[in-house]
């Protein structure tokens, strides 16, 4: 690393990384802190993790969160896959219109989307709850999944499919033997990312959960408005480990796939 040449920028970068990591490190450390008031370090304990895992409200929220994540992923993927398969061969103008729709989805402030969905359910006299949350999550997650799959598809050279067709494969065989394997890593990454986004969501859930549904982020959202406790640190540490490891898996899968296929398929999608 070229530290001396970039003295100033190196220093700023160091502070920026410290700024990004120190608060997370503090939460993780305090999750083990025996000092209940968190006024200092009194040695390590697993008590807060035991309490967090033993808490019925937390366990129930975790269960509901996982159900929502799985339903959302199951709903999102087919929608996104079929959309990008169309997109790939569509006319330029149609593609551009579709892209605008997708980008609007991604860029719209979530609080506006969530209030709009809330209004839709209210005006249709449909009660909010689990189904509403799953639908809500699946709308913007479909857009994110489409972006990921588009990136993967643009890395997939059409020449491969043309070559397969020239070699005598019919349309279905080309799709089954060339397009699907090419798209698969993208699907896997999209699934992991959609799952994490849904797992992590606060705003859409907050508007659409109603009184029956409680997700883990909503429980945390409710708790941290009032106080800081060692138990929240423990839940926070667990959630952090969970989301970080899911994304790490996505990252490793992606770099592996790219490495294996290097030469056979162009790499892309970072």
């Amino acid at each position: 690393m070229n530290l001396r040449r970039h003295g100033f920028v190196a220093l700023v970068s160091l502070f920026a990384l410290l700024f990004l990591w120190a608060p997370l490190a503090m939460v993780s450390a305090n999750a083990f802190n025996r000092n209940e008031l968190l006024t200092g370090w009194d040695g390590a304990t697993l008590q807060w993790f035991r309490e967090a895992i033993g808490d019925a409200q937390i366990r129930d929220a975790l269960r509901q969160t996982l159900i929502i994540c799985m339903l959302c992923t199951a709903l999102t993927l087919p929608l996104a896959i079929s959309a990008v398969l169309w997109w790939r061969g569509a006319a330029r103008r149609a593609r551009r219109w579709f892209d605008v729709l997708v980008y609007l989805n991604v860029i719209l402030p979530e609080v506006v989307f969530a209030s709009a969905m809330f209004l839709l359910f209210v005006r249709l006299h449909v009660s909010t709850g689990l189904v509403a949350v799953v639908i809500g999550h699946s709308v913007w997650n479909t857009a994110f999944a489409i972006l990921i799959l588009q990136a993967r598809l643009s890395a997939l050279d059409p020449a491969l499919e043309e070559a397969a067709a020239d070699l005598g494969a019919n349309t279905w065989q080309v799709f089954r033997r060339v397009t699907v394997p090419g798209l698969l890593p993208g699907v896997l990454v999209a699934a992991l990312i959609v799952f994490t986004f849904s797992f992590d969501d606060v705003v859409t859930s907050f508007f659409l959960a109603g009184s029956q549904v409680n997700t883990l982020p909503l429980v945390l959202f409710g708790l941290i408005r009032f106080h800081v406790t060692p138990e929240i640190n423990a839940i926070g540490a667990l959630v952090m480990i969970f989301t970080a490891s899911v994304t790490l898996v996505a990252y490793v899968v992606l770099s592996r796939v790219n490495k294996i296929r290097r030469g056979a398929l162009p790499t892309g999608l970072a």
Partner: protein
Amino acid sequence: MRPRTLLLVPSLLWFTAFFVAPLVLVLIHSFGRMDLVTFEMRFDWNLQNYRNILDPIYFRTLLRSLALSTSTTILCALVGLPVAYFISRQNDRWQRGLLVLVIVPFWTSFVVRIYAMVNALENGGPIDTLARDLHLVSGRINVLYTPKAIAIGMLYSYLPLMVLPIYVALERIHPSVLDAASDLGANGWQLFRRVILPLAVPGLAAGAVIVGISATGEYVIPEILGGGKTLMLGNVIADQFLNVGDYPFGSAIAVSLLLVLTLLLLVGRGTQRMEAIT
């Protein structure tokens, strides 16, 4: 209809029913009126809801939202540019490692990150203690539950979104370009002003759009770090829909927020064009 077009149908129906339709519904409701006692909707098709936004209480919130998102975007750019530049000048291995270090905090749970900020900014927390030990403040820092805490929290949450696009723009600069500038006698400042900054502009613009839009519509951060007062537009919208139940007024604020964002985007694009011409 060609069979391929059938593939578009599911997602198009999906987005129409649950993205376009709700937003159209919001637009329609913004011209309506709701009796808050009987909860009856009437549509007078006038601009009364929009006129109510000009009421100082709400207008000040609008201005505060804009001030906070602008300062967050500037802060992100000021910190993000050196960080992105530093990363872009390392070898491949270090680049990848440093990028992971920037991205991983962004991938950890949003609520947990904001909670971590509460911990850090609290009176009696590490920053407060440090500031008092160094005699920077007398008494407490009193940052948590103020607009300052919101700006810090947004900088903390959105910094990676600024670093990544700038990095993408700067990573393409070949080292020889910088060497050439130095050899021709450019000093550090000239190198930055004449070579690095112009090349960073596309990344800065992309980052500013992403950070600016996210920050202007932020809801969770002001709710927690701002102490739950109606400090930003996002909070006012949520309050109108979920607590007050005045859907028409909430809708009008939501539409106004979108109008403001569109305006900012257009101004941003306009200035970029102007720069391209001059």
